[in-house]
């Protein structure tokens, strides 16, 4: 397994700069997640690491070796694509062993390694099926199997769960995390889903507009966001962010408070508001209030909190949980 180092990576398409001086180290065995909104450059960055996209300037080192201009197959990486890229004319067995058959490895060796991987991924009973006869989760596992068989230094995942339904996505998150624990491999994972990032990552890299906004452990990003963008992106429901007069009253440029860090009361509190909308999620209740002098405010309360639309409530931030930013703008 290997350490991945990106040194001042830039990428331009014509006169348009897509990536602007990205420097980052992904440690050996780390599960690193690139997260950000659509068009922030996270997939482009992953593709540059894989060698499928060229680098305009900067260096990429994998396991200490400069692979900036190396062919994808010479970088010691394996990639799982969003669409899985399973060959429809090949069986599961042939798909998993595809890389080895390209390298003209002996049939017995391919058979043995495919068998072992299929066992690990619980695919043994599906080896003779074609991809169209598999469920989304099974296809996902075949794609992972095809990556594992190459015995790569680094695994790259490009939004691999985005085609799955919510239940399967949740299951696959657990399976991928287990797989990482078992393989102890360096993994770089791209997603736009902050829940995936928070639940799976050792390290999250938040990207925005071709730049790194912040790098850190999931809870570091949650508790100490470096910018209003990160504050708004990490956490669900997203943080309440205010600028202008509302922020100025709090003595900052941008003021933020997470929905789960707001206490509601029927009698008194810092802000007075009217309940506009209620989302009952079972264990939790998400209340949308219209607050005087603040605007919209979202609060998370226990699921059994009595509340009706149109009711007047008072909201107060939990002490020590407010976020005051001296720079940046609400994204």
């Amino acid at each position: 397994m290997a350490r991945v180092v990106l040194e001042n990576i830039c990428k331009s398409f014509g006169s348009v700069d897509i990536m602007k001086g990205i420097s980052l180290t992904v440690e050996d065995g780390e599960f690193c997640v690139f997260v950000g909104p659509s068009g922030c450059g996270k997939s482009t960055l992953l593709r540059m690491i894989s060698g499928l996209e060229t680098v305009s300037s900067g260096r990429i080192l994998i396991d200490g070796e400069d692979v900036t201009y190396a062919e994808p197959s010479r970088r010691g990486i394996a990639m799982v694509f969003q669409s899985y890229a399973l060959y429809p004319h090949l069986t599961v067995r042939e798909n998993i062993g595809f890389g080895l058959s390209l390298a003209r490895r002996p049939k017995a060796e391919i058979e043995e390694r495919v068998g072992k991987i299929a066992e690990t991924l619980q695919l043994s009973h599906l080896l003779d099926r074609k991809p169209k006869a598999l469920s989304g989760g099974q296809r996902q596992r075949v794609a992972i199997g095809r990556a594992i068989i190459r015995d790569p230094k680094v695994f790259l995942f490009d939004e691999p769960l985005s085609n799955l339904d919510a239940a399967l996505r949740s299951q696959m998150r657990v399976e991928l995390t287990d797989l990482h624990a078992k393989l102890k491999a360096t993994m770089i994972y791209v997603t736009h889903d902050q829940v995936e990032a928070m639940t799976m990552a050792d390290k999250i890299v938040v990207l925005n507009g071709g730049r790194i906004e912040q790098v850190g452990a999931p809870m570091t990003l949650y508790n100490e966001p470096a910018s209003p963008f990160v504050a708004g992106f990490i956490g669900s429901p997203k943080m309440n962010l205010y600028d202008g007069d509302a922020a100025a009253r709090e003595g900052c440029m941008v003021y933020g408070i997470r929905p789960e860090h707001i206490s509601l009361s029927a009698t008194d509190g810092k802000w007075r508001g009217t309940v506009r909308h209620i989302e009952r999620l079972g264990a939790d209740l998400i209340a949308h209030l219209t607050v005087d002098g603040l605007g919209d405010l979202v609060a998370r309360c226990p699921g059994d909190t009595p509340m009706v639309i149109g009711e007047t409530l008072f909201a107060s931030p939990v002490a020590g949980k407010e976020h005051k930013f001296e720079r940046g703008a609400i994204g």
Partner: protein
Amino acid sequence: MSRTKSPYPYWFILPAAVIFTVLFLVPTLASFWFSLTRWDLFSVEFIGIENYRQFFREPFLIQGLFNTVIYAVTTSAAKTVLGLLLAVLLTSGLWGQGFLRTVMFFPVLVSTIGVGITFTVLMHPTRGIINVALAAIGIHGPGWLTDPTLALYSVVLVDVWKGIGLATVIYIAGLASISPEYYEAARIDGATRTQLFFRVTVPLVKPATVTVVTLSLIGGLRSFDLIWAMTRGGPGFSSDVLASVIYKQYQAGFYGLSTAGNVILFALIAVIILPLTLWFNRKEVEL
């Protein structure tokens, strides 16, 4: 609760069914009947399978049958292989590929008879530009259309030139439907360019191959106009195909024999195309 099937939707099929019956089914069945007769405009005499016996007794008719198969297979194979290679070239980001695609498709739009006449002139043994050009570099050009061993293949060459544009366009559409991720995954797995072509492109472009092979084979088996315009089946019967033989028999007044030839052509197409289509459909990939 059981629902009775309403006949209402079937009324919508009726116009197409009537047209199909009158223009296809009746003439096909009628030709089966007339192939068993000696007929002209005023009389019909049932003679059983005598027309078929005669057809397979005549060496030039059998040569026409063989030539048809050779013509169909060679034109189809050439259009399939060259069409795929050209489509790969014309989707590779080549400079001016939009213009080249138009140029490639242009012969498809030209009249077959016009192409036939033009190439007859170009392939003239002494005055044709092809042999004149060959002579300029010291090569004695063959009698493209006058040499009995070469005439059929000269027409094949022209047919391929004229038809390859359509095959290329079908392949370009087929290549465009292959997700780039298949190639990227193969590149990461270490595939060479040759492996990308044979292990990714060829299998995944199969739906287009099915279309090209089927269309070009049927076209080749039915081919008449280009052969007639260039050689009229000659020299002798060396470039005769079933369609030109049928035409000649019809011209000579052997209506029953020419109808039997039509039935044989129909059967030949069915015998080749039906199993091929079934085989292709079983093997077809879903992208």
